[in-house]
């Protein structure tokens, strides 16, 4: 890793009841890096992500993001700090429109006026169907 770590995990352990899902793992992700976590089912990959976004609580260890200890922060605070989670199974709210789902992603942002701009930039990687979806805005 050549860049300074954006995310650093030190000695993280997570338990589900009596089951130890993660045992003192150390991991770092540098700014601008793509880092992958591989392993079999049940190895703890999803648990690691859920611990970072504070859906599950660490039993021991520290999660440091941008130099801040976020181990005990709340999930919405972590989103505000700049961490977003695209969960396993995608968890799309299928009773809501595509646009509503997208707007939920901006829920923690205060600058509502800027969301429209983000809507188009969030979609820029998906050029092929960006215009289709944005045209549905009429609902």
């Amino acid at each position, binding site marked *: 890793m050549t860049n300074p770590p954006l995310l650093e995990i030190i000695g993280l352990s997570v338990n589900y009841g009596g089951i130890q899902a993660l045992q003192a793992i150390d991991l770092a992700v540098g700014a601008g890096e*793509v880092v992958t976590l591989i392993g079999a089912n049940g190895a703890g990959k*999803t648990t690691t*992500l859920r611990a970072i976004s504070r859906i599950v609580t660490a039993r021991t260890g520290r999660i440091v993001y941008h130099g801040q200890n976020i181990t005990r922060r709340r999930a919405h605070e972590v989103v505000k700090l700049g961490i977003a989670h695209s969960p396993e199974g995608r968890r799309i709210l299928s009773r809501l429109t595509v646009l509503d789902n997208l707007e939920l992603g901006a829920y923690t942002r205060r600058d509502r006026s800027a969301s429209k701009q983000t809507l188009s930039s969030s979609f820029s990687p998906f050029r092929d169907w960006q215009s289709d979806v944005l045209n549905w805005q009429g609902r």
Partner: protein
Amino acid sequence: MLAIARALMSRPKLLLLDEPSLGLAPTIVGEIFSIIQTLHTTGVTILLVEQNATLALHHADRGYVLEAGQLTLSGNAADLLNDDRVKQAYLG
């Protein structure tokens, strides 16, 4: 794709992606990974969890291997792709 776009709506610096390819047709999986590549070039930092280790390592800078809650290996993605233990256990 909607799930990824929804995550991008908060304008994250760090994107956690959990099994983005799971259950998708191969052509869509290809699209998802080219999107990951695009995000990478725009400066978004990504922590990617993937069942498809070959694909993940081909698109990552570095990787970690988790076994039963413990990290057993870590290194450059290219090195992990050539690691005999990784090959045997995850790359078929």
